[in-house]
């Protein structure tokens, strides 16, 4: 059985289960991985399936704990209070408001390198602000999704680059400037493109009516404590390594959640955890399925076949291949895309400055978080703004995403030129 046939069979099984039988995406991925394993002559390679899913074990912990933290912020009234504070501070000037919002959304992504974290933490905080100021639900979602992806690419922490660097033994040093060249124009243009026309400055009195309830009068400053601790620890572990302990993102979120119990409205942490698990379960199962899917693709040789096929393209097709395959593969996982395709692509362009190449590739791979069915950034952004159909959010991401693709590809093409400038 050829690798191509196995791959197509796995994709077909997945499509059949997910689209025709309407099984959850994660479960469909698991079964299509199993089918691929059987067809590839590996039998029901249970330990391979399980092993594959472990590739995302740490990611799963981050997602669940981030979701718990987010639910705690909501139920303790902290989210409402912060929203109120933001509204009061920034509602006067459009551009300042939009850029601040963009920076806020990007911030957790910059620190954690994960777009999901960005969407779920500050993304969720600014969403009500934007919607109150007249930005539509879907455009708000798009702004948050794009901000999260830009945050993921922006320095100081870009996990995509780290993954690619790990594959070619390139230390994670000297990336701040190249990454900023890519991210800053995108951040400014995206926030203005999506928001400038629709955001309306409203009267303070008018706004007061729609302001969420601030619990500051009841609980005082300690309301902000969980947020400050979480942001401080996230920031500290990368900006002041060695001084602030690196307890890992899941532990930071849980610590914040624990503090949240005592800092605002009383809540039952067990029930809050249940809600968080209920909400994050689909994505958790998708990650389990994707892990199994990749493992079987590698085991049966389908992964190698795909990578080799892309690499054997002539230069023009190679760039076309990067521009299409990396975001497309992001449908499976942006991190997977960086690791499986990014590394060979860097190697295929070995004559260029690898720092620039990998920075640009990370921008392209980051778009994978917008690619259905996983579309991590899109799905969570839709959830945060309360939009049931995440495709409507993705539609507004299209232009900014294309712009990001163009910038990423331009940096790749003009790497030798930029190399001299830096």
């Amino acid at each position, binding site marked *: 059985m050829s690798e191509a046939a196995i791959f197509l069979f796995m994709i077909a099984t997945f499509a059949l289960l997910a689209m025709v039988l309407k099984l959850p995406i994660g479960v469909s991925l698991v079964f299509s991985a199993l089918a691929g394993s059987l067809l590839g002559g590996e039998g029901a390679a249970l330990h391979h399936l399980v092993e594959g899913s*472990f590739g995302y074990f740490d990611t799963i912990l981050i997602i669940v704990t981030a979701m718990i933290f987010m639910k705690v912020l909501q139920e303790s009234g902290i989210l409402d209070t912060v929203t109120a504070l933001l509204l009061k501070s920034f509602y006067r000037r459009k551009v300042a408001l939009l850029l601040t919002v963009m920076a806020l959304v990007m911030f957790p992504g910059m620190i954690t390198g994960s777009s999901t974290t960005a969407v779920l933490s500050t993304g969720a905080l600014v969403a009500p602000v934007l919607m109150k100021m007249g930005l539509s639900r879907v455009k708000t979602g798009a702004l948050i999704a794009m901000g999260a992806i830009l945050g993921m690419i922006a320095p100081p922490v870009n996990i995509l680059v780290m993954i690619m660097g790990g594959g070619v033994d390139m230390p994670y040093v000297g990336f701040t400037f190249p990454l900023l060249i890519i991210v800053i124009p995108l951040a400014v243009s995206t926030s203005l493109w999506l928001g400038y026309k629709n955001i309306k400055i409203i009267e303070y009195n008018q706004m007061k009516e729609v302001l969420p309830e601030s619990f500051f009068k009841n609980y005082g400053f300690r309301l902000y404590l969980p947020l400050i601790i979480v942001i401080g620890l996230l920031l500290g572990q990368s900006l002041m390594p060695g001084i602030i302990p690196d*307890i*890992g993102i899941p532990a930071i979120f849980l610590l914040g959640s624990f503090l949240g119990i005592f800092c605002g409205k009383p809540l039952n942490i067990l029930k809050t955890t249940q809600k968080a698990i*209920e909400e994050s379960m689909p994505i958790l*199962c998708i990650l*389990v399925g994707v892990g199994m899917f990749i493992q079987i693709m590698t085991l049966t040789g389908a992964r190698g076949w795909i990578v080799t096929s892309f690499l054997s393209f002539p230069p023009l097709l190679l760039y076309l291949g990067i521009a299409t395959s990396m975001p497309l593969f992001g449908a499976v996982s942006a991190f997977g895309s960086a690791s499986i395709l990014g590394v060979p692509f860097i190697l295929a362009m070995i004559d260029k400055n690898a720092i620039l190449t990998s920075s640009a590739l990370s921008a392209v791979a980051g778009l994978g978080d917008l690619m259905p069915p996983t579309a991590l950034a899109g799905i969570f952004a839709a959830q945060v703004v309360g939009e049931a159909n995440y495709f409507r959010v993705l539609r507004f991401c299209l232009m900014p995403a294309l712009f990001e693709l163009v910038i990423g590809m331009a940096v790749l093409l003009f790497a030798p030129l930029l190399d001299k400038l830096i």
Partner: protein
Amino acid sequence: MFIVYHLIVFYLASHFIWYLFRENEFWKRVSVALVLIMFFLRLFLIK
């Protein structure tokens, strides 16, 4: 840190089991069961 993370895995695994018994939709419960495999294996320090 190792112990802290072990406790986190334990806490989440117990919640997954609780959720498994709370949920009524079949495929959602299958999802939970699939995710649980990993949590058990890490909890028992096997993988």
